[in-house]
């Protein structure tokens, strides 16, 4: 079973390489990629099941045991993230097939998506700081290439800040990794965790932690490091945007959670508080940005930030309950956000634009599409019993319990504003009736796109209405993430216990 742990990285990487040589776009190629996507999903589900029943899968790559070799560990959190990645990647591929006739397909798009997925999967599965850096770079290269692949000159301009900010982040990350090696003598997560706990209180550890969290906060898009995101995402074609919005920033959130839960000493309360407050600001500024935008992808892109704020806020509260909230929120958010981008893409096809000034009439002519947008939109705003409600609810509970009234109020204000900005889309694209705006029902592409979106919406409904099993999983995951000693023992075995002992 342990060897399976590395497969989520190898399968897409191989598929990407094969895709580079299989240059001719055609139906067979599409089917092959879809099958690869499906295989990844099955694999990820097997890993979730195995992590729940047999505990985390640990693999020392090349037979080299930690702390000398590179460790791959798939515990519950990693397995959940891998599953979500696989679902989003598969959905975005299928959606892309429906949106674009095969003769217009860029031969590089599918291989690049696979490389991107490989990078994402590696960052979820790795248990080594340097390896994580590699994963980030793979992701960055693939994502930048995808960003500019089908963009025109004007749009490429917006991709530049994305590249620059992420390269700076990469450089800082390298610095943090070097510092870690100097401080702890290892880059292995478990090794760092064991030593860092011993050295807790050392100002150098604090400085290193700040540097590391800064890098991850850039990845996640936390205030004030989010500038690169909301202008870059809208230039993507809808299927790729769904993948980016679902997964890329969530990699940042995942590593923040992993860093706070597994890597860093748990008593850095000041740092957690700072994270919570930055998250509060991200929440509000993100949603205000969304309110100010006037086209669907732009609004949704700002919402990513606002929602990231919710997740990071939960991490900042840093209790088992709060971490469970963060995990549940991530699960909900990835599905809902992707489906919203997809629904936005359907609007774009039907109205030939997702600019709110040039979009209307959809509810009158296509109520089904209306529902596909309305349900995830209300879920995003946190209406019970949809999936978004439970995550927000848990965050509010934890906030009230800790007496963080200002943050609770900020989160509630952000929820109402989220609703407001969603209604803005709803009012114009769906409810408004404007005879000068055409609805291109004759364009059959919307059917396939809506079907894929519908699948995601059904999934999000299931998460909301059948919240109990997902919640149980979230709590199990939270316990595991916060169990630093268990993690160290798992990776380093008895030697680790000796290291961890005071």
């Amino acid at each position, binding site marked *: 079973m342990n060897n399976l742990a590395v497969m989520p990285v190898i399968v897409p990487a191989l598929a990407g390489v094969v895709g580079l040589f299989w240059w001719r776009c055609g139906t067979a190629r599409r089917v092959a990629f879809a099958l690869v996507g499906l295989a990844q999903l099955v694999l990820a589900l097997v890993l979730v099941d195995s992590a729940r029943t047999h505990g985390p899968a640990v693999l020392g790559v090349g037979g080299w045991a930690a702390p000398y070799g590179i460790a791959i560990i798939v515990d519950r959190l990693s397995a959940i993230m891998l599953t979500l990645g696989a679902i989003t990647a598969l959905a975005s591929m299928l959606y892309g097939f429906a949106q674009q006739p095969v003769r217009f397909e860029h031969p590089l798009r599918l291989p690049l998506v696979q490389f991107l997925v490989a990078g994402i999967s590696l960052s979820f599965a790795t248990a080594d700081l340097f390896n994580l850096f590699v994963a980030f770079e793979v992701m960055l290269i693939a994502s930048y290439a995808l960003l500019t692949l089908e963009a025109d000159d004007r749009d490429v301009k917006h991709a530049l800040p994305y590249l620059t900010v992420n390269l700076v982040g990469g450089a800082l990350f390298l610095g943090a990794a070097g510092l870690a090696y100097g401080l702890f003598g290892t880059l292995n997560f478990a090794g760092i965790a064991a030593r860092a706990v011993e050295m807790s209180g050392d100002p150098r550890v604090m400085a290193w932690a700040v540097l590391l969290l800064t890098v991850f906060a850039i990845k996640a898009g936390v205030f004030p490091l989010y500038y690169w995101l909301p202008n870059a995402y809208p230039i993507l074609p809808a299927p790729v945007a769904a993948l980016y919005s679902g997964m890329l920033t969530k990699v940042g959130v995942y590593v923040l959670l992993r860093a706070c839960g597994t890597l860093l000493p748990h008593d850095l309360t000041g740092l957690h508080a700072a994270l919570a407050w930055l998250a509060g600001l991200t929440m509000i500024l993100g949603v205000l940005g969304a309110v100010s935008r006037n086209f669907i992808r732009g609004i949704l892109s700002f919402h990513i930030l606002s929602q990231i704020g919710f997740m990071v806020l939960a991490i900042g509260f840093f209790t088992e309950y709060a971490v469970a909230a963060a995990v549940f929120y991530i699960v909900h958010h990835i599905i809902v956000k992707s489906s919203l981008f997809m629904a936005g893409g359907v609007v774009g096809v039907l109205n030939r634009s997702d600019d709110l000034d040039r979009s209307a009439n959809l509810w009158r002519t296509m109520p089904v599409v209306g529902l596909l947008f309305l349900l995830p939109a*209300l879920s995003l705003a946190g209406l019970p019993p949809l999936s978004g409600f439970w995550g927000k609810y848990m965050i*509010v*509970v934890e906030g009230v319990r800790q007496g963080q009234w200002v943050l609770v109020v900020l989160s*509630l204000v952000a929820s109402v504003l989220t609703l407001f900005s969603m209604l803005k889309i709803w009012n114009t694209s769906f409810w408004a009736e404007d005879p000068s705006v055409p609805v291109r029902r004759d364009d059959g592409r919307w059917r396939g796109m809506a079907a894929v979106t519908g699948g995601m919406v059904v999934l999000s409904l299931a998460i909301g209405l059948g919240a*109990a099993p997902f919640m149980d999983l979230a709590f199990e995951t939270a316990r595991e993430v916060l169990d630093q000693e268990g993690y160290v023992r798992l990776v380093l075995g008895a030697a680790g216990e000796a290291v961890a002992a005071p």
Partner: protein
Amino acid sequence: MIFAPLVAAAVAAFIPSERLLRWWSLIATLAIAVGSVALYTGFDLTTHAFQFVEFAPWIAAFRINYALGIDGISLLLILLTTFIMPLCVLASWKYITTRVKEFMICLLVMESAMIGVFSALDFVLFFVFWEAMLIPMTLMIGVWGGPRKVYAAVKFFIYTMAGSVFLLVAIVALYLWDPANQTFSIPELMGRPYSQSFQAWIFAAFFISFAIKVPMFPFHTWLPAAHVEAPTAGSVILASVLLKMGTYGFVRFCLPITPLGAAYHAPFVMWLSVAAILYGGFAALAQSDLKKLVAYSSVSHMGFATLGIFSLTTAGLQGATLVMINHGVTTGALFICVGIIYERLHTRDLGESAGLGKFAPVLAGMVGLFCLSSMAFPGTNSFIGEFLVLSGGFTVSTLMMCIAVPGVVAAAAYNLRMLQKFAYGSTKNPDHSGVPDLSAREIFALAPLVIFVLWIGLQPGPFVDVMKVSVDHLVQTTQAAIAQAAAVAAQ
């Protein structure tokens, strides 16, 4: 019971013909209404405990359960809901011509949620139903409404949503209050020894949320907009049932869970109620749009309900519950009448409809009866409710009641003004001679309401008996909690 309308809605989704769909919705809502009578006949009048209790764990990790149960107060409101629904279907028989299927599904889903709100015994379940009701109502206004429907729908939605945020915080705070025994069970949360200041805060959060729903002055501005734009059935549901959820919230949560908070804030709330009675009454007097007139009269009537509740006396609370039911019957009926007038004249302007009564005597007779009921004429349903509220109020503050009484006079004035213009006004311009009187379907829609107006007015016994034990118990426990706190403070 809760899921019956949902099932009916699911079936409706597969019915192709509009005609069949209307009949199916009518039969389903009628069957549910008949079924709900079983709740009444099986109800034990001698206990204040919750009856027909259902329980199943829902999300164990949060201790959230699927818990239902009713007492006398919720029974009356559930019956009101189930009886109003078939009338709503009848009222939209011809009015709704586009997207009939979606409309009927909205109606049925809403019925589920409304029954759920009145019977939930778990706070989270309550909140879920509370919010679930919002969406079909917003759609109903936004899709089938008048010219400014989008504005009205969004205003309604945002207002209510902003209110429920406070509700959520209050629920969470109550849940966390006792770390050893965290629960969302509404009966268990009652009567816990919360401190005075905690209760005051919780009450304030509840209050904002429920006051928006009622709506109390000055949170009422969404109501006229929503009523004017909503289709007839939407207005009827809004007036008859939705507004009651606010007052129901006061009765079910504010008094038993935060009695000290209620006592602390009661004078303030009563003054707001008096303001609502006066403001609603005089604003109604100034309207020429029939729907706006009835909408503002709602604000005034609901003022009586909140006044009665926060007098914290048995008479006041019984009166308030009756006002809730009566307002549901009478205002619902008036909105149906206005809808009927609009279907005939395509205007709701009081001046344009003047003199219609001469050519439609049955309609005029109905409107006349409901107007008398709305102004609380003795012998009609509203009289007994408002009388009890005022008599409860007088034991608390004579001054306040003296100020409120002009509101009663205003009610007489705006109702008589409407009736006089409508029934006896000049018919020269415009000419209404070709306007038909009520059809059999319309008579069928209004007749049950006529029966209830006279039944509650002349023989309120059965209605009072159902809630008597529950109300008595509520007042006793509330007063006992207040007295106990006062005794502690005196020591």
